[in-house]
């Protein structure tokens, strides 16, 4: 679903070059739930920005669903986002003048869907998320957790192929955090949506099946269900397998 090849991003700060991402290659499968973890300054947010096409990489490619996002013009990106991408923000970024329902329906407005259909869809998803009572409340009248659930509903309402989330629980307390995280896992699994989120909290990341750890702009660990996907680790794993076959004399594992 998402393919990253030799991605490099260099910022110029004053006269100095700062390497934010250094030669990153990744592959995220369709329907996969993926957490990008790392400390502040590790480049995790920069990576998310490149993936979502919010910034252009210095070098390398980002492909989503076979389309080269890293080379798209602003105009192409707008249409692409409209049809393929959902986004969840750390600070919710709801429009303060619109009600919960109108906020959720907002991305559908860009697609030119009529008001009635939009609101029907928005109402349904809000009810599913337990916000049926808050439909006509403005963001200011809701708690942080509720606001973020509205934000999540907004990301899912258009049934995108990929959702990106930038520290979606960053502004929430720990109890709400867990609740929201579970909700994200459930909805993306149910709808078979590829989900990529950034967090600084390794404990939270452990709830995800795929965890990519960044440090100083490099991938230092990439685990899927406890198995490393890094090239050198895979080589070691293959070597171990080979030795195992040598020992037992069967080729059962290889034939699989």
């Amino acid at each position: 679903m998402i393919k990253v090849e030799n991605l490099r991003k260099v910022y110029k700060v004053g006269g100095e070059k700062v390497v934010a991402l250094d030669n990153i290659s990744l592959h995220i499968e369709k329907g996969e739930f993926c957490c990008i973890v790392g400390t502040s300054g590790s480049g995790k947010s920069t990576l998310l920005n490149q993936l979502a096409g919010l910034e252009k990489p210095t070098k390398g490619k980002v492909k989503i669903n076979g389309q080269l996002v890293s080379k798209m013009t602003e105009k192409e990106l707008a249409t692409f986002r409209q049809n393929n991408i959902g986004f969840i923000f750390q600070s919710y970024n709801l429009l303060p003048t619109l009600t919960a329902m109108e906020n959720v329906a907002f991305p559908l407005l860009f697609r030119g869907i009529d008001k009635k259909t939009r609101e029907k869809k928005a109402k349904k998803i809000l009810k599913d998320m337990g916000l049926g009572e808050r439909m006509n409340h403005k963001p200011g009248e809701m708690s942080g957790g509720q606001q973020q659930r509205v934000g999540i509903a907004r990301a899912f309402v258009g049934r995108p192929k990929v959702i990106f989330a930038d520290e979606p629980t960053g502004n929430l307390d720990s109890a709400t955090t867990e609740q929201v995280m579970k909700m994200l896992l459930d909805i993306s699994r149910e709808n078979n949506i590829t989900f990529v989120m950034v967090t600084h909290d390794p404990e939270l990341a452990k709830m995800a099946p795929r965890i990519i750890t960044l440090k100083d702009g490099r991938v230092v660990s990439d685990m899927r269900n406890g198995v490393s996907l890094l090239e050198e680790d895979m080589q070691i794993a293959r070597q171990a397998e080979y030795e195992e076959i040598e020992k037992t004399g069967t080729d059962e594992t290889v034939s699989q």
Partner: protein
Amino acid sequence: MKISDLIRLSFDNLKRRKGRTFLTVLGVIIGTCSIIMMVSIGVALDKSFDDMMTGMGDLTMIEVYNWSGNGDVDPITDDVIDSFQALDKVKVATPLYYFNYSSNFTSGSNNKYQAWGNIRGIRREAMELYGYELKEGRFPSSKDKEYTVIVGEQFAYNFQNTRKQWPNNMVDPIPDENGVIPDPFVDVFKDKIYFRATTWDSNTQEEKEVMSEEIKIVGVIKEDASKGYETYNGVIMDMEDVIALEKEYKKANDIRDENKNKKREYEQAIVKVYDIEDVEEVEQYIKDLGYNTYSMTSQRNEMKKMTQMIQLILGGLGSIAMLVSAISIANTMTMAIYERTKEIGVMKVLGCELRDIKNMFLAEAAAIGFLGGMTGLIICYGLSALANMIGSSLMGTGDVALSIIPLWLAVFGVGFSTMVGIVSGYVPAVRAVKITALSAIRHD
């Protein structure tokens, strides 16, 4: 994005900042008012000139003279007038002529009643087209016998009773104490009326009649100062008849006809065209032949040029206020974009197309212009009515308008203010488009 959504979103955004929107709209209201009021004064001025002109004469008429005084230009002869008549756009062409000698009319037994009156010569077929309006009777036709004429409204009151002493020798068309207008001595339709010429016979020491021709009056026309004094108390006669009468008069009085073998030359001719729009072309054609012309339309065009100039100056003055309001719209929109940078970023991340972002801001600016224009227009109607009320009470006359707002001005006023909104919103809108999606996740 649907247009309905675009408009709703723009109005939502304007409502969000009521105070600032109000102030900006107020600026546009003042701008619109100043333009509309200024132009409306110009329009009123133009209209009052126009009314004045129309009151002064026929707009489709061209007067032709030959003042050149040299031989380069053909004198105005019947041939020249016929050539005018032959032009496509000309309805009628006729000489205007005054009978050259004193004209004395008599009626009653022994010429008891006598009157003096000018004889106006004009082609018979031109009488009605020239604009004489019948009060009674009919116009002469080609079937009538010689000297069939129409007379001015008060011609009958010219007759005096030569047998009576002043003031009983005259009747005036003035109502008496009972409000009744007295009848004249002569009934122009029933009584026989003669054109009479006399000379002083030195032998008998008496007036001697040398000529007497019966004049048949078939119509009385309304007085019209723009046509001439003959409409008041003159006699209007077919050109041919005037020539015949003049010939006879000369013969009777032993006057030698110097121009006997020459074509008759006229001092003045009248050319009437079908349409006001044709006046300029025909007038120019006649001018090019070397004649002098005068027409209400060319006077009017000169006036028009002047009033248009005045309108332009007034409109220009009004535009200054509009310019200031345009700057204030641009300022408001720029501020809005700075404030909403993050929001625009979010919209971009959510997949809002670039043109929709641009259109959204343009729609907001247009809405400011439109609201200001509409409100301004309503205020202008009020101001205009007020100005006219005060104006007419000051001048004492009822129907003088100081300010007129025609439909075109109303449409133009609102359209222009909306346009100003869009134009001043354009640069900020383009700027909004350039805001990056990344602004959505910058924490500040």
